[in-house]
């Protein structure tokens, strides 16, 4: 089988630049290999499942194949409770070629965008492959994904949603690359949903890289729900670059998959740039859910804020690694980070590594991390008022994560994310 580097036919073999990039990705991945316990960035998250060697990289077949997919998707299940511009993906493949989007928003399948030289300034420009083995692997299979550009000054009236459906069947390994560009003063809300419509125990792997470029004064609000099948693997990287006075605000809720990692790497390039990275993870069973953030403050007057909450039960393992890096001269910056975890069972585990790396003196930075179980006194208080033990537990858990959800400003989206 040859591990995760398989010789399959990809669309766009006639584009020399793309082929060269894929080759680079292949070499970079082969030289790094899969991360092990010794890889500092993956210290707590084991990817043994992927070493099994039986994942299949699927070729994209002709047009009839996509038709077949469009029929199998249960439209009803994935409908959002609010109005949005929807783009659907099936098993990691784009389901349609044409999107109905308002004026000022350009969207193309990635391959077409590459062919039209739209991606030159963006493709693989937001991260270094040698630091991200899975992004290198993703580069080796560059093909599927969307290139999206919101033109200068355009404010999207409705959120834009990438909706992903995964089916069971073969142990499919899907690589997906999206590029989102917000030009000066543009504003948009991006929603990502990952769910399955096959067997709950389907095994598959989604390896997603989103490259996000936020222009001057532009604002992107990015919401994600990861609710993959119980045995699936989900690895995602959001590599974000923010320019002067731009804002990147994200919220990620993870609740599915057996192994999932959401990595957010934000570079605040110019003065006034701001990043807000919040997340909630809740799980049971044997899952490992990893939230990793890395915020780089490169310019003065930049701000970042992170609030991550986790609820871990069963034999699950929650991982949080957060890093705030402040470059020399990036003065008058503020970086805050808080991680709180709740352990519900005796076999659950939480591993935390919040990191500060500071090379400038005029900064305000802090991080906090706490870990504990439900407060017995609070439980007692509720029970003494006639609330059953289980119900009281649920109330306290809900109250615990609610602080994070309150960070979502849009009511519709907040309710939807909470109740998903």
């Amino acid at each position, binding site marked *: 089988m040859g591990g995760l580097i398989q010789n399959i036919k990809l669309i766009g073999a006639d584009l020399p630049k793309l082929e060269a990039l894929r080759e680079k990705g292949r070499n970079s991945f082969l030289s790094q290999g899969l991360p092990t316990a010794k890889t500092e960035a993956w210290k707590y998250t084991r990817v043994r499942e992927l070493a099994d060697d039986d994942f299949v990289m699927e070729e994209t077949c002709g047009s009839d194949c996509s038709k077949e997919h469009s029929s199998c998707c249960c439209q009803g299940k994935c409908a959002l409770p609010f109005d949005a511009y929807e783009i659907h993906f099936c098993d990691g493949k784009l389901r349609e070629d044409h999107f109905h989007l308002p004026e000022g928003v350009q969207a193309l399948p990635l391959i077409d965008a590459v062919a039209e030289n739209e991606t030159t300034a963006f493709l693989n420009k937001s991260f270094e492959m040698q630091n991200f083995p899975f992004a290198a692997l993703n580069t080796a299979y560059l093909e599927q994904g969307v290139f999206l550009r919101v033109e200068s000054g355009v404010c999207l009236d409705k959120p834009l949603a990438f909706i992903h459906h995964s089916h069971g069947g073969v142990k499919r390994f899907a690589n997906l690359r999206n590029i989102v560009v917000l030009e000066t003063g543009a504003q948009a809300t991006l929603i990502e949903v990952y769910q399955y419509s096959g067997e709950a125990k389907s095994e598959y792997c989604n390896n997603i890289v989103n490259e996000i470029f936020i222009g001057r004064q532009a604002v992107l609000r990015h919401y994600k729900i990861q609710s993959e099948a119980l045995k699936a693997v989900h690895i995602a990287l959001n590599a974000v670059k923010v320019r002067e006075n731009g804002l990147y605000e994200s919220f990620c809720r993870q609740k599915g998959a057996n192994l999932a990692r959401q990595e957010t790497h934000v570079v605040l390039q110019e003065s006034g740039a701001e990043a807000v990275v919040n997340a909630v993870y809740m799980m049971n069973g044997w899952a490992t859910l990893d939230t990793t953030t890395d915020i780089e403050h490169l310019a003065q007057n930049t701000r970042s804020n992170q609030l991550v909450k986790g609820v871990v039960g069963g034999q699950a393992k929650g991982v949080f690694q957060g890093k705030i890096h402040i470059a020399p001269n990036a003065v008058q910056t503020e970086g805050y980070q808080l991680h709180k975890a709740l352990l519900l069972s005796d076999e659950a585990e939480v591993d*935390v590594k919040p990191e500060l790396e500071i090379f400038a003196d*005029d900064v305000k930075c802090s991080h906090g991390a706490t870990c*504990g179980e439900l407060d017995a006194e609070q439980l007692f208080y509720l029970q003494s008022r006639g609330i059953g033990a289980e119900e009281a537990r649920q109330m306290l858990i809900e109250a615990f994560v609610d602080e994070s959800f309150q960070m979502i400003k849009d009511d519709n989206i907040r309710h939807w994310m909470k109740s998903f």
Partner: protein
Amino acid sequence: MAKKPEIIDESGDKYKYGFVTNIESDTVPKGLNEDIIRLISHKKNEPAWLLEKRLAAYRFWLNMKEPTWAKLSYDKINYQDLFYYAAPKQKAAPKSLNEVDPALLDTYNKLGIPLKEQEVLAGVVAVDAVFDSVSVATTYRAKLAEQGIVFCSMSEAVKNHPDLVQKYLGSVVPYTDNFFACLNSAVFTDGSFVYIPKGVKCPMELSTYFRINAKNTGQFERTLIVADEGSYVSYLEGCTAPQRDENQLHAAIVEIVVLKDAEVKYSTVQNWYPGDKDGKGGVYNFVTKRAACRGDNAKVSWTQVETGSAVTWKYPSCILQGDNSCGEFYSVAITNNRQQADTGTKMIHIGKNTRSKIISKGISTGFSNQTYRGLVKVAPNAFNARNYSQCDSLLIGSTCGSHTVPYVENRCRSAVLEHEATTSKISDEQLFYCKQRGIGEEEAVSLIVNGFCKEVMQQLPMEFAIEAAKLINISLTGSIG
């Protein structure tokens, strides 16, 4: 204010312990191999079991790699270019202070620990001074012996208390532990040994003074403290080295065994030569310190003030095995010029109701870089474990760096762990407030820094606290402007 430039010029030469004592020393040839180890062992008249231990460690060390994970950059150490044994030459082991070389005693006087004076005056501290590789004199021994307390050099302990040494040496830090500990296990020359018998509260503070004098020597001392059931001891350690252009290596091990209901308080003021202001010279300080709370209700407390060394790599740790045992770590680290420090602690919670507390204060200035690196680990059965960690960093000037890398690994539901870290600079308001009241800028900075470190300084025994406060002021000179 007018004086400031002068102070800045002096900054690199503020090391008042930079003198060299001209004492004939007895060294073994340069380099490291099995013969050298046999020679060291032979010179020290060691029993065969210890030589075997050394050789086993050396053979293991040959296959080890120097760790690179710390945020430190230094020139590669050539382990074959060092002397592994340097002892002040003497005819026979000294029986009393009168037999100790006067030049040597003079060195210690310069360092501020007048041994003779202490023996005469009613001092409160018993001192074991380690000069290069061997322990020179241990004061107050007779008085301690009355209570059954053993406080002597490691070489003597090997001779006089082999059963205790054999039982505990390497039991907390095995030679397989890490690169530098392994090297130390192979070549360690001397150090202090303390045994506090059951139920004894040590009536005075015990103290060791380390000094690297000879050129190109590595100092590999080894300290072992055993506190038997219900005992208590407070132990102090101080370090200095002469000013030299080349780097000196210091790779020590401190092992502490705390049995049921016992308590050990270990305080360090580390003031090895930090190198000059361009980062030339200075001591490479790679130290493994670990305490094991083996019995219930055992308590261990580490307090350190780190102002010296060009490179520091040091993580005093606590293994909390006994139920209700308690570990504490208080640290102040100050780096200036080109100093680098990667320091922190490990708290391993294994027993039930174990508690740990970490207070770390880092001050970086000049072109220095400092990292707090810590681990709090809670095993599945460490019910009701409790940890509180606080790491504060203060940056003075825009060319230094301060980093915090805590690891928290929790596998127990009922454990409550809290970690917080902040980084900031001295606020302009605080400075303004002081200056407004006629306090000079430099003085104001040291006042604020001392306030910032107060929580830790309070943990130090009295005479150490005064020395430490002075050291902090010395380290800070030239840091503003």
